[in-house]
C-alpha cells in the first residue's frame, strides 16, 4: 500500500500526541507519588481555593496546599523560609513581576516551560524561561452607584484629586499587594509622585489587599476606590453588590502575575503538573469565566459584559524596574499616606 502524505502526517501527529500523553502520564504518576503541591499565591482566596479544587478533582490524590497572602507577604514568607533553610514552597505566584526577577537573580527558581505558553503574548513570558504570567489583572477605579451618581462619579485618575472626594476614597497598599505596587509605579511613570502627593490630601482610607476595596466600596464605608483588582470588583458586582467599575481612558495599569516553581521544591513533579494545569486552556478559560480574570491565552473568551483588553489603553511596567524600585515605592507611599 502506498502511503499518502496525508497518512504520513496523520501518523506523525498521532505519534507526537501520544508521546505527549505518555510524558503526561509519567508526570501524573510521579506527582501522585509526591501526593501534594504547596502553592504560595496572591490570587484572591476564593479564586485560589476554587482553582485548587478544580485541580484536586481532576487529579485525585494530589492535594493542593494553598497559602494565600498579599504578594509582598508571599515574598516575605518565602524569603524567610529560604533564609532559615526551610524547603516548603513548591510554587510561587505573586502579582509583582519584580519578585521573579529577584528570585531568578538569587537562583531560587526552577527553569520550567509549561506546554501551553508558546502562543502567549511576550508580556507573559520570561525570556530566560523561569516564569510565565498566569493571569492579568487591571487596576481600576470603582464607585458605589447607590451613593455616587453616574454624573458625579470620577472617570479619570485626575478626577480623584478633586477635594470633594476628601474622606470618601479607599486605596489598597503597595507594601502588601503586587497589583497596587504595579499600579503605583505605572501611574508614577505617567504623572510622577506629584499625583500621589495630591491624592494623599484627600484623607484616604488605607486597606491592604487589592481585593479589599471591593468590599469597602460595596458596603459604602468609602464610596470610591482609587485602585483595586478589577476581577475582584467584577466578582463582587456579580454577587449583586452595588459596584460600578470605571476604566479610565488615560490608561489602565495592566498587572501580569507570574508563576514559577521553586528551585528546591519538595514536590517538583506535582509542581510541574500543577503549572501545566494552570496554563492549560481549560484552566485559563475557568479563570476568565468563573473568576473574572484576563489571561495570556489567545483562545480564551471573556464574559460579554467585560471590555476587551484590545479596546483599552493599557499601562504596563517593566519587571526589572519593579524590582529595583520596590523599596522606594513602599517608602514613598508610607510617607504620603502615613502607614
Amino acid at each position: 500500500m502506498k502511503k499518502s502524505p496525508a497518512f504520513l502526517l496523520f501518523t506523525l501527529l498521532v505519534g507526537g500526541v501520544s508521546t505527549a500523553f505518555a510524558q503526561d502520564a509519567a508526570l501524573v504518576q510521579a506527582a501522585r507519588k509526591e501526593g501534594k503541591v504547596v502553592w504560595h499565591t496572591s490570587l484572591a482566596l476564593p479564586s485560589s481555593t476554587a482553582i485548587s479544587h478544580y485541580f484536586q478533582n481532576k487529579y485525585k490524590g494530589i492535594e493542593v496546599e494553598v497559602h494565600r497572602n498579599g504578594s509582598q507577604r508571599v515574598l516575605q514568607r518565602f524569603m524567610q523560609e529560604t533564609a532559615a533553610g526551610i524547603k516548603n514552597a513548591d510554587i510561587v505566584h505573586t502579582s509583582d513581576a519584580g519578585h521573579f526577577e529577584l528570585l531568578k537573580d538569587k537562583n531560587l527558581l526552577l527553569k520550567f516551560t509549561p506546554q501551553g505558553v508558546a502562543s502567549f503574548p511576550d508580556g507573559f513570558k520570561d525570556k530566560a524561561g523561569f516564569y510565565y504570567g498566569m493571569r492579568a489583572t487591571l487596576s481600576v477605579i470603582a464607585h458605589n452607584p447607590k451613593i455616587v451618581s453616574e454624573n458625579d462619579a470620577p472617570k479619570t485618575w485626575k478626577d480623584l484629586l478633586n477635594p470633594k472626594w476628601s474622606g470618601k476614597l479607599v486605596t489598597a497598599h503597595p507594601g502588601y499587594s503586587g497589583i497596587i505596587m504595579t499600579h503605583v509605579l505605572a501611574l508614577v511613570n505617567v504623572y510622577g509622585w506629584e499625583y500621589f502627593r495630591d491624592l494623599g490630601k484627600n484623607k484616604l482610607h488605607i486597606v491592604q489587599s487589592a481585593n479589599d476595596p471591593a468590599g469597602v466600596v460595596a458596603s459604602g464605608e468609602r464610596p470610591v476606590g482609587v485602585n483595586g483588582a478589577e476581577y475582584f470588583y467584577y466578582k463582587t458586582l456579580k454577587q449583586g453588590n452595588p459596584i460600578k467599575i470605571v476604566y479610565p481612558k488615560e490608561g489602565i495599569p495592566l498587572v501580569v502575575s507570574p508563576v514559577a516553581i521553586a528551585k528546591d521544591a519538595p514536590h517538583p513533579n506535582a509542581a510541574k503538573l500543577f503549572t501545566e494545569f494552570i496554563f492549560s486552556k481549560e484552566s485559563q478559560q475557568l479563570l476568565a469565566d468563573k473568576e473574572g480574570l484576563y489571561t495570556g491565552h489567545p483562545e480564551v473568551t471573556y464574559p460579554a459584559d467585560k471590555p476587551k483588553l484590545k479596546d483599552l489603553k493599557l499601562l504596563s511596567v517593566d519587571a526589572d524596574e519593579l524590582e529595583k524600585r520596590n523599596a522606594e515605592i513602599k517608602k514613598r507611599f508610607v510617607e504620603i499616606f502615613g502607614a
Partner: protein
Amino acid sequence: MPASQTETIGKIGTRSWSTPWLKDPTLPVWIGVTVFLVFLMLFPLGSIFRASLWDETGFSLGRYLEVFTNAAFLKAIWNTVVISFWVGVISVVIGALLAWLVTRTDLPWKKPIRALVMASFVTPPFLGAFAWTLLAGPNAGTLNKLYRSITGSEDALFNVFTMPGLIFVMALYSFPYVFSMVANVCELISSDLEDAAEILGANKWQTAWTVTMPLALPALIGGFILAFLHSLSLFGAPAILGLPAGIHTVTTQIWALFQYPPRLDMAAAFSVPLLLATMVLIAVQKKILGRRGFSTVGGKGGQKRLIRFGWGRVPVLLLVLGVVSLSVFLPYWILLKAALSTAWAMPLTWDNFTLKNFSFAFFEYGDTQRAIFNTFKLGILTATIGTLLATLIAYITNRNLFRGARYLSFFALAPLVIPGIVLAVGLFIAYTRPPLVLYGTIWILFVAYLTKEMPIGFSQAESTFKSIHPELEDASRIIGANRLISLKDVTAPLARSGLIAAWSFIFIGVIRELSASILLFAPASKVVSVVIFDLKEEGQVGVISVLGILLLVVSFAVILAMQWFAGRDVVATRE
C-alpha cells in the same frame, strides 16, 4: 494560724527533711527545670541585644541612633505613648467604677456583671477591634447608620478609624485588668472608715471620693500601669484600626520592619526601648503596690457593708450594662450577623442569610483546618507542659529547694515585662538560624507561648502551693517516697483546682495570641489568630467572623469546664 507562722513551720519542716539536699535523687529534675527556665528567658532577650548592637561589621550604636532620629519611628513612639496613656485613664475610670459598684454597693446582678467583665477579658482585642470596624466605621458602620437614620444627620456619630476610636476600643479590652485589681482591694477595705465619714456628715459620693478612693489609690495606679502596659503591647487592634488611618504604633512598626527586605536589626533596636519602658513601669507598679502603707487595707478583720442605692439602682445598672454591651453584646452580635450574611452591611433578611461562610471556613479553605488543628494542639501542649513546668518551679521556690531558689520566681515572672512582639523578635532571631532552627514549625510558637504564659501559670501555682501545708508531703517522704512522687501523689491532688485554673488560663491565652504569632508563623504553621489577621487584610468579613466566633465559643467552653472541674468561681478574680 497567721500566714507567716505557717510558712516558717513549713520551712523548718522541709529544711529538716531536705538536708543534706545533695542526696536528693530527684535533684537533677530540679536543676534541669531551673536551667531550662533561665535559658528560656535569657536566650531571646540576649538575641535582641546582640542583633541590635552587633552585625557582620562589628559593634555599633547606629541602630539606636536611627530609632531616635527617624521621624517615622519617633511618630510611632509618640502615638503609642498617647494611646496607652488614654487607654490607661479610661480603663481606670471604667474598671474602678465597675469594681466599686460590684463590691461595695447593693447593685443587683453582680454575678452576671462579673461574668460579662470576664467575657470582655476573654475576647481577643483584635477580634473586638475587627467587630468595631463593622459597628463604627464612619460610613457603613451599623451604629453610625442607625445614628444617621434617627437624626437625619450627614455626619458620623463616631469614627473608629481615628486615635480616639483606637483608644476607645483598646480601653474596652484593657479595663478588666483594672477591674480585677480594684475589686480585690475593695473587697478588703473595711467599712469602718466609710462609716466614720458618713457620721461626720459626708454623703455617699463624698465618702467614696474622700475615703474609699484614696484607700484604693495604689490599686488604681497599679491598674493604670497594667492597662497602659497591656495597650502598649497590643498589635492586632492598632493594626486593624490605626493603619487604615495612617497611624503607626511601635508594635505595627516593628511588624512592618519584618517585610522584605527584613530589617531584623532595626526591629531589635526598636524593641529595646519598649522593653525598657515596660521594665520601668512594672518596677514602679511593684513599688506602689508593695508599699502597703495603708494598714486599713489587707486585713480581713473589718466589716464590709454595702452602700444602698435604693431606687437609683436601676439607672446605675443600665449604665453598667451599657458599658459591657460596648465590649461584649454589640461586638458579639455584629460578628454573628456578619457570619450569617452574604453582605454584612445589609439587613439580615432571608435573601441575605447564608451558611456559606461557615462551610467555606471549615470545609473549603485548607488553611483554616490546619490552623484550627495547630491552635488547639498548641493550646493543649502549652497548657499541659506550661502547667507542669510552672508547678515544678513554684514548688522549687515555695519549698526553697536550694539556695537562691527564690530568685527563680524572677525568671518565671520576667515575661510580664516582655511585650509579645518583642519576645517574637527575639525568638525569630534566635531560632531561624543554626544550631536550633525552630522557625517553620509550630515549635517556635510553642516556645513563644510557653514563655509568654509562664507568669500566669507560675503565679497560679505559687499561690496554690502557699496555701498547702507541707506536712502531708513530709509524711509521704518519711515513708519513702521521693520529692517528685510526693508532689505527684500528695501535693498536686490538693492543688487540683489551682492547677486546673492555671491550665485553663494558659490555654485561653494561647488560642487568642496574635502579637507574637504574627512574626513567628510560617505558612505551614499558621494558627487561627494569624488566619483571622490574614483574612482581615484581604477583607473576608464573613469568614473572619466565623473563626472569631469559634475562638470565643471554645474559650467560654473552657472556662465553664474549668468551673465545673475545679469547683470554684474563677469569674471573681484573676490573680
